[in-house]
């Protein structure tokens, strides 16, 4: 049996581990075109701020890989020949497979603005991009950042930490308006401004100007011009579908897979950012671009490839990130487009927030603590926590398990309710009942 895995991201690595946990003898070949192999892509943000050295981004060393007993090939898979059960690498060499995993990830969307094919325009996708940024980020020079979500903020923070004068362009009137509420956006923006970032609201790029092939200035839709030595963008990502274009495998926005992470070809599986996984609970096929789901999908795909039929159970969308220095957890449904009958409540810090046993205290002592809950008919559907993370784990569990919060629902919605206390108390009794 030969298992072939395309992609050395977390989905690919996790699949290798899963296969090896049940099959000691099958041959495993992994192929990747990233010259740096497996590293923490979210960690690139901390490399930019200078919190870690680039060498710290690699979770595994040679000995760890040797233990997993697989072959690694550096190269780009250019074709999948389904009928022959074979791949073409770099347009020339051929490799046969019995079971194939496509875990090629997603890639940053290009910046489609006139003048964008010059030097000094950067994105944060791979380690090579991050190194390129570090090389170009010069103390005292100016950078313009465009885009939204977490990556744009990571670029902003990283460049600022490197002493650049940073202009962050926001299209609308506030940061990340489809996930954060007004207060939360304000908190983030205020902290950015305190650290010297210059925010430009209602600002959109119109044109990029260059001098001797290097970006020198940008013009905004309203005619304003900003001089800059670097332009960093994060305008979204897209699953890498080029490879499977002419394979006939079913796709939508990503590669469509069933709950066993199997594509429409029973010998081909897909996992991670490139896969659009079927969620039996909602009946929908969903794209994620998150580390932990990629890891879990890789694991489940690997087990299925090795003949252990296992279903992928999507858990409530969950991300922990840092926004302008504040640890922030986003769980479940928190943004726009929510049900009419759902009620959102938000509160800041609570005196007794930290009365939980130390065992679940993750981080505390921030100058800002904020929690927002989204309450459905009988259970919590989403939550955002900024700063203190004490209640993050309880909320994640309660939301994922759809815990029946009827006993505290009314009290949660009372004006000035101490929601942190109510959640903490409820969690302790619920946890006993469910023997978690």
């Amino acid at each position: 049996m030969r298992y072939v895995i395309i992609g050395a991201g977390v989905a690919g690595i996790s699949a290798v581990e899963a296969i090896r946990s049940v099959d000691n003898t099958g041959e495993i070949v992994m192929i990747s075109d990233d010259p740096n192999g497996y590293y923490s892509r979210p960690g690139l943000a901390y490399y930019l701020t200078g919190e870690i050295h680039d060498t710290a981004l690699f979770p595994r060393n040679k000995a760890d890989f040797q233990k997993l007993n697989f072959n690694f090939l550096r190269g780009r898979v250019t074709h999948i020949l389904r009928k022959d059960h074979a791949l073409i690498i770099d347009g020339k060499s051929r490799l046969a497979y019995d079971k194939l995993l496509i875990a090629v990830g997603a890639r940053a969307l290009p910046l489609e603005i006139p003048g964008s094919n010059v030097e000094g325009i950067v994105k944060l996708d791979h380690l090579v991009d991050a190194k390129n940024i570090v090389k170009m980020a010069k103390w005292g020079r100016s950078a313009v950042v465009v885009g939204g979500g977490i990556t744009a903020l990571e670029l902003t923070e990283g460049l600022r930490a490197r002493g650049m004068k940073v202009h962050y362009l926001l299209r609308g009137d506030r940061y990340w308006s489809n996930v954060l509420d007004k207060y939360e956006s304000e908190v983030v923006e205020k902290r950015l401004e305190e650290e010297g970032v210059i925010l430009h609201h209602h600002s959109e790029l119109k044109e990029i100007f260059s001098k001797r092939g290097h970006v020198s200035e940008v013009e905004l839709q309203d005619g304003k011009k900003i001089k800059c030595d670097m332009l960093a963008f994060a305008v979204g990502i897209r699953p890498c579908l080029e490879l499977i274009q002419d394979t006939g495998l079913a796709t939508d926005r990503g590669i469509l897979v069933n709950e066993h992470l199997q594509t429409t070809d029973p010998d081909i599986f897909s996992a991670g950012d490139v896969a659009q996984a079927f969620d039996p609970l909602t009946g929908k096929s969903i794209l994620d671009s998150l580390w932990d789901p990629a890891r879990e999908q890789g694991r489940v795909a690997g087990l299925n490839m090795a003949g252990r039929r296992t279903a992928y159970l999507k858990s409530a969308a969950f991300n922990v990130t840092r926004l302008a220095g504040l640890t922030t957890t986003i769980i479940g449904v928190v943004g726009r487009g929510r049900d009419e009958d759902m009620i959102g409540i938000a509160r800041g810090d609570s005196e007794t927030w930290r009365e939980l046993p130390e065992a679940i205290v993750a981080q505390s002592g921030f100058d800002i603590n904020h929690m927002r809950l989204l309450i459905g008919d009988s259970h919590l559907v989403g939550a955002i926590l900024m700063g203190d993370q004490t209640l993050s784990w309880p909320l994640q569990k309660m939301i994922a398990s759809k815990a029946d919060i009827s006993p505290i629902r009314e009290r949660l919605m009372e004006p000035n309710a101490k929601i942190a206390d109510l959640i903490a108390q409820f969690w302790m009794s619920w946890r006993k009942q469910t023997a978690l």
Partner: protein
Amino acid sequence: MALLNIFKSDASKRIVLTRGHVVSESSRCVQCGICSYNCPIGINVRAHVWRNEPVNHSECLTCGECVARCPRGVLSFSEIDIFARREE
């Protein structure tokens, strides 16, 4: 090149327990390596987290450096028995 000390986890704010162990919640972790990088005695904290295990390393000082530095609140202190299953 010197870096501005901004946007980083505030490592001065920490809880330190002399008893107990550092436990992890692996679903929050993205393997960035800040924990291992900052461990004063070089424990591979990140590898423990990947396996969702407590940092049951005999040399762990429970100094709290990894707990405080983790940008995602993956690590916390617990007084669990290292031989027992993690409680929560």
